[in-house]
């Protein structure tokens, strides 16, 4: 009886194959639009009153949120400590440039390694807990790094932050990549952003990504299919940490500066807000979220020091009216 009724409802839906083909085409079109906008940003940004470094900032925050979202949105692990790996990436890069080498690529590599390995190392401690305890441990670990950065004055510059380093140009034989130029640095950042996107994109389409999503959906079922959930949570944590570290490393290069704020749980919370604002279940949600976040911050921080409360208000409104995030909201509207 029940199933006969449901079949009746099914018949009213559009043919599945057709609708899935359509949604694939739509997704490809959306991605093409995103890349077209990103590739031309230095040219149209000034027309909107923006500037190139603002674009680079959006990319950096998007990349960090994209990494976090692999864990948060797709694996279902609520991390409130991702700034730790972002910040380690930033400090790793800054310290390397200041004390060891003038090579920007090496410094970038050092930052990614430091932050990524940090996440890999502290992942196992975290993934033994679930739900709110998971979140609390991620905060605790993040704050630990924060206090080290504040206290270890001689190395990190303490609360004033790390200064005295600068990104350098990259030499390819006779050719020079002039990273001092904002536009070129934007494309440099975009290149790494694209790598981050490619990694997350291909993981999501693979058995590894399917396993992550299954963890989010039903851990009990997955355990009773023989999957060690904790182990795969750890992998998700590590990958997402490496991507956050890459973002942090780029952030240090963008600003030629890093401070304990880049490690703080406030920033971790901002990353979560960005994901939720944009849409945690969507691929481009973190990008949409960070556009909103960075633009609002840039605009409002020149007007009021309390800009964070505006972000907070937007966040509350979004959660109330767009529980699936902005992008998730539109996706659902279109699919209906």
């Amino acid at each position, binding site marked *: *009886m*029940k*199933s006969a*009724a*449901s079949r009746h409802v*099914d018949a009213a839906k559009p043919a*599945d*194959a057709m*609708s*899935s083909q359509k949604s694939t085409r739509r997704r490809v079109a959306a991605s093409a639009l995103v890349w077209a906008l990103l590739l031309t940003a230095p040219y149209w940004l000034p027309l909107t009153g923006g500037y190139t470094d603002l674009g680079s900032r959006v990319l950096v925050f998007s990349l960090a949120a994209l990494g976090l979202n692999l864990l948060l949105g797709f694996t279902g692990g609520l991390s409130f400590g991702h700034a730790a790996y972002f910040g380690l990436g930033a400090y790793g890069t800054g310290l390397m440039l200041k004390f060891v080498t003038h090579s920007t690529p090496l410094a970038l590599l050092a930052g990614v390694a430091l932050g990524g390995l940090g996440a890999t190392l502290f992942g196992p401690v975290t993934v033994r807990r679930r739900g709110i305890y998971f979140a609390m441990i991620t905060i605790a670990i993040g704050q630990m790094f924060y206090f080290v950065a504040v206290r270890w004055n001689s190395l990190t510059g303490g609360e004033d932050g790390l200064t005295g380093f600068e990104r350098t140009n990259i030499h390819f034989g006779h050719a020079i990549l002039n990273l001092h130029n904002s536009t070129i640095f934007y494309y440099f950042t975009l290149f790494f952003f694209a790598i981050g996107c490619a990694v997350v994109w*291909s*993981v999501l389409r*693979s*058995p*590894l*990504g*399917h*396993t992550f*999503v*299954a963890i989010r*959906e*039903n851990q*009990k*079922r*997955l*355990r*009773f*299919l*023989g*999957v*060690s959930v904790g182990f*795969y949570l750890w*992998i998700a944590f590590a990958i997402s940490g490496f991507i956050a570290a890459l973002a942090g490393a780029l952030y240090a290069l963008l600003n030629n500066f890093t401070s304990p704020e880049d490690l703080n749980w406030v920033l971790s919370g901002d990353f979560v807000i960005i994901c939720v604002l944009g849409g945690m279940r969507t691929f481009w949600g973190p990008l949409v979220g960070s556009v909103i976040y960075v633009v609002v911050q840039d605009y409002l921080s020149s007007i009021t020091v309390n800009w964070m409360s505006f972000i907070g208000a937007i966040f509350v409104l979004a959660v109330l009216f767009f529980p699936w995030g902005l992008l998730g909201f539109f996706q659902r509207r279109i699919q209906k």
Partner: protein
Amino acid sequence: MSLLSLKNVSRHFGAVTALSGISLEVPQGELRALIGPNGAGKTTLFNLITGFFRPSEGEVRFSGHSVKDVSPEKLVQRGIIRTFQITEIFLDLTVYQNLEIAVETAKGLNLRPWLSRRRRREVRDSIDELMDTLRLGRLSNHLAGELAHGDQRLVEMAIALSHEPKLLLLDEPTAGMGDEETQRMTELIRHLHNQRGITILFIEHDMAIIFDVADRITVLDNGRLLAEGTPAEIAANADVQAAYLGGVK
């Protein structure tokens, strides 16, 4: 040698004794029904066999090896697969995606960040085969959460079968199903038993099904093993009649 063997197994939850002194042998290839009134301890027995809970006393052995301190994940890899009284599937994913995860897991591919074309085809073929066996093809692109209850149970069956179980534990597979669906599920269970030789232990309340398909029946009542035997023996057993059959029907 029995595939599954329980020796004097008990399980307490605080003051509640869910199971006490259960000894049970299920030989390879048998289709065994587990019956008993609500709260008899049937699901608890499944939880002990699958490593979800530990026995308070006694021992569970599978294929001659003790399952003591073996994790549920490891027991799955040894061939014990279960379904749940309350369906456990991936509700926000499509039927296809549900089976995809199950098949990729069964093939041990979880760690792969990419798949070769050949592997991808293998996965797709296995999914199609499961869809055929369970007749789920028409629902492939539907969200599992939007399916009728009976179809969700079929999805869970398909997930369980992806792993080619040695011992299949089914917790009330036909609960809440319509007549037609119940019949399909019954046929499926019989098919898995006859054609594939899978050892099955299933909890069921529908006496017609039990007497129809089961080789042997184990009756639990109030945490104790009340009786065991062929359907004919159980039907004739006075204790069972008093405690269970008479009480319910």
